[in-house]
């Protein structure tokens, strides 16, 4: 019951969805399964919120170090949830003004929009922007041209970084637009950083990415089959679960 039923559910769902690509009769079932999938994904966010609530409340009740920040998290969580679900400050839809809750939840000047615009967006953008410093400092410490592979990576990274910015014009913009050897078709300007970065991106990087994509596709297909056939059951967790 604890392990067999889930195996059947995953196998039936997976094979029905695979069948939609081959059997027209399965298409409607596949569409229903997709709609349910999206709904479950939405409920997974609620599960995540519930889990956050549980963890933060445990922290507060045990008065663990930093429990005050857990309280701040909870306040921010509940305020966002309340203003978003109740649509605080949202005007009704112009087509249906008598229905107070018919407006868009992210409507401009609503309280939820305010939180999104002035708290969520700056915080998420700054968090990722902060990584610019750490990624640069990590690269400075870790990147050493110790062997051929590391040297290639370093050179290519520098060419792409410079080639995609105005620095390429400063550094190599002076290369003349003249043929190197008579009418060979190769010009000096072909070797400026901007052109070099384009050649690298078009040929070598695309080739590498293509091989990686093919590898990923084969990996995903084999893992999916292992899950559907019940060979891989790791997602069911342990038998000790209550």
């Amino acid at each position: 019951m604890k392990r067999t039923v889930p195996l059947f559910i995953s196998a039936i769902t997976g094979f029905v969805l695979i069948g939609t690509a081959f059997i027209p009769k399965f298409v409607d079932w596949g569409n229903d399964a997709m709609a349910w999938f999206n709904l479950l994904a939405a409920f997974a966010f609620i599960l995540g919120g519930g889990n956050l609530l549980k963890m933060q409340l445990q922290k507060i009740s045990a008065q663990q170090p930093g429990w005050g920040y857990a309280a701040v998290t909870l306040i921010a969580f509940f305020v966002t949830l309340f203003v978003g679900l109740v649509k605080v400050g949202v005007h009704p839809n112009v087509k249906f003004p008598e229905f107070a809750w018919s407006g868009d939840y992210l409507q401009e000047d609503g309280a939820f929009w305010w939180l999104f615009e002035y708290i969520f967006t700056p915080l998420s953008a700054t968090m990722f922007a902060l990584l610019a410093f750490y990624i640069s400092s990590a690269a400075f410490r870790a990147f050493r041209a110790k062997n051929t592979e590391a040297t290639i990576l370093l050179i290519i990274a520098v060419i792409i970084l410079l080639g995609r910015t105005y620095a390429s014009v400063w550094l190599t913009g002076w290369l003349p637009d003249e043929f190197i050897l008579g009418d060979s078709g190769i010009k000096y300007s072909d070797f400026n950083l901007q052109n070099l970065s384009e050649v690298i991106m078009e040929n070598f990087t695309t080739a590498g990415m293509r091989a990686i994509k093919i590898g990923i596709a084969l990996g995903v297909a084999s893992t999916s089959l292992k899950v559907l056939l019940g060979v891989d059951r790791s997602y069911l967790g342990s038998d000790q679960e209550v």
Partner: protein
Amino acid sequence: MKQSTLIWTILMVAGGGFLLFQASKGNGRVYVREIPVEATASQPDSEPQVYQWTKNQQVPQSEKDDPGVSFSLSRTVGLWVAAFCTLAIFSFLYGDNPLYKFTEAIFVGVSAGYAMVVAFWTEIATNLFAKLLPGLARITFYPDIDSTTRPELLYLIPLVLSILLLWRLSPKGSWIARWPLAFFIGATAGIRLISYLETDFIGQLQSTVMPFLVFASDGSLLWDKSLKNTVFIVGVLSCMVYFFFSIEHEGIIKYVSRLGIWVLMVTFGASFAYTVMGRIALLSGRLVFLFNDWLGI
């Protein structure tokens, strides 16, 4: 007082003084143009009533004296809150500190709440509530639902599965959450298996099948195109040989896989450069916000 503390205190005082100076010049304020909105009741059976409210449109500070333009307190407070949040996160560069931890806690709470609200309005309300109770949905959130729409009882299945999923939070019987999880995993496996094989396997292989030698219509060899195709095919094949671990990488395979590693290093170098550029673009965006939108410099 430690030297570093003294330096930071001086910097903070100077920064605060600069902020006050900028604020006294009228910077860091947001102005809006009020646009009146008028709407009449849509339902034929409801009383003919006109509803009025105003919509705000942000305008540049240069238009603050125009007619219909007024100071917006909520947006101005928002601007200062956004600037405070940005600076508080940047303060982590100096080291972990209470200001950073405070804004980080806010970020976690707001993000979780935001994700839940979006999930509720885009999926649960639209595709579950409106499908199971169309009559109630019509008189509350979605007045455009047809009054003859009947409930789709099939949606009771995802509702039950969702409740079982939330059971995971219960101290006992959390194993029941494996059922919806199994549906989730099965659906993901089914969707991914086909889509990845179709687009990333067959599609990419198809795009790689191209001629080594390319000729023009007059029969002459297009050497640059030919070289490009050859580099491309050899690059893809050598990378795939490197990924092929079922055979020993010895002899010719060793050299081909080594070439594959080099092509992969080129790819990773370019990816790294793009990641750095993306982060720097975000950083410059935040700096533009601080200096331009907030301080008005």
